[in-house]
């Protein structure tokens, strides 16, 4: 929780999800490219940009590695069987969730797709492990 006066930043992931069976119509791809590039400039100008990545290929390009006993099982396909898959992401700096949501609105408008906003963990790793343990408060 923040009261907005403190200027320390949290990193958030803005994750882009898409349904690969429903591509953006070709006549709108120009618009998306222009919008996404403009957003990149805006993030950079605001000092909010950390990193971005676009995934190459759809869920078909995904491979899952699982440890099973002492062995590893490698399977073809994405981890979750859903309609919409992770397609790319930004890592940004923002003062709080509201600030991150403002960037996400711009991203959703540029991409013409929904954006999931997730905070990155910014404390020590022990806390992260404890927080994710079953029954943790």
């Amino acid at each position, binding site marked *: *929780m923040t009261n907005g006066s403190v200027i320390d930043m949290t990193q958030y992931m803005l994750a882009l999800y898409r349904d690969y069976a429903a591509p953006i119509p070709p006549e709108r791809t120009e618009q998306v490219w222009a919008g996404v590039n403009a957003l990149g400039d805006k993030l950079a100008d605001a000092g909010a940009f950390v990193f971005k990545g676009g995934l190459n290929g759809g869920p078909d390009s995904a491979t899952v590695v699982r440890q099973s006993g002492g062995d590893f099982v490698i399977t073809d396909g994405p981890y979750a069987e859903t309609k919409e898959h992770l397609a790319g992401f930004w890592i940004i700096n923002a003062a709080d969730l509201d600030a991150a949501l403002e960037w996400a609105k711009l991203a959703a408008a540029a991409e013409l797709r929904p954006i999931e*906003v997730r*905070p990155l963990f910014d404390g020590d790793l022990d806390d992260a492990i404890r927080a994710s343990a079953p029954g943790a408060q």
Partner: protein
Amino acid sequence: MTVEAVFRREYGRCVATLIRFLGDIDAAEEAVQDAFTVAIARWPSEGQPPNPGAWIVTTARNRAIDRLRRESIRDERHAQAHLLYGADAQATDHNAPAQEETVPDDRLRLIFTCCHPALNQPAQVALTLRLLGGLETPEIARAFFVPEATMAQRIVRAKRKIRDTRLPYRVPAEAELPARLQPVLSVLYLIFNEGYAATADSLMRLDLCAEAIRLARVLAELMPDEPEAQGLLALLLLLHARSAARVADDGSLVRLAEQDRQLWDRNLIAEGQAIVRACVQRGRPGPYQIQAAINAVHSVAPSIEKTDWHAILTLYDQLYALTPTPVVALNRAVALAEVRGPAAGLSAVDELRSSGLDKYYLFHASRAALLRRLGRTTEADAAYATARSLTANPVEQAFLDAQRATLN
């Protein structure tokens, strides 16, 4: 005033202020509960302080600082040391009288945090009742017919999301306010409706209506320039004014048309009407204000026949223009039947069939009542039967059964 009464009145305000000091909801709740424990031990013998709320805030803050100091010595946690310095600095810098520590905005911040759109609505409702209303988790669970463990989990999850995502603790800026106020109003209205819908087996239930009105009053006081916050309060007051007339001695539901209007609470009505008048003068209508105005018209009518249905129909037209939902259209059709007769009303109702409203028991119940007035008894009976199959509420079921029984 008993400690319990102080608790009910001051809990939300104290927690809101402590959250600002400590930056953490759980720590704030713990500190305020500690302070009330001290109050229970001391007040009976030492007497109640002149400003009990400010005393609780000061005591809670001192306890929290002590606790953080102990914990930071014990495990040298940087985060807590940092928090401690922050809280300490604030305490010594200001050194202000206790009263001034309760910034009026704190509860407003807390309302907007509890009803942030990043939280789902059940979580918004639970957090609002817990943090602003000071209700215990088991009470909230019982009120919403949810297992206690489920409700506890819901609250824990919501608090964790607030912490992990750094959900801000502030009143939204002017530009965001219309959008951000919406979920706040919805949450309070939903709490009220939850209490209003329960009648028969409501003995074990918390008085959710009274709680919703208390919170709506806080919101209306904190946001005097938001006409919809005023409108919501007026609407709840006017609806609540009828509660004694709404339920018969046997627990069955009494419709507006059959209510004994002598039982309506004149004080609540007068308060609601005064707010509606002020809203009309302000001239910035919204859905809650219009619904309040509709109920204000009902509240001055001596009977259902002598109600100004023309005024009500006009208000429903305005409401439909702002929120064109099938439910508003259905209510408008019912008003139309009073102005132009049951046949006109029925054809307006029938036009709504394709809107998805035919899954809604009130659609069929309204049709049934109009068919009955037109003497189309067989069709009315079938419509009552359909309505009966679409509601799980025993009070509504009993009402529909009674209507069917008197058809012939």
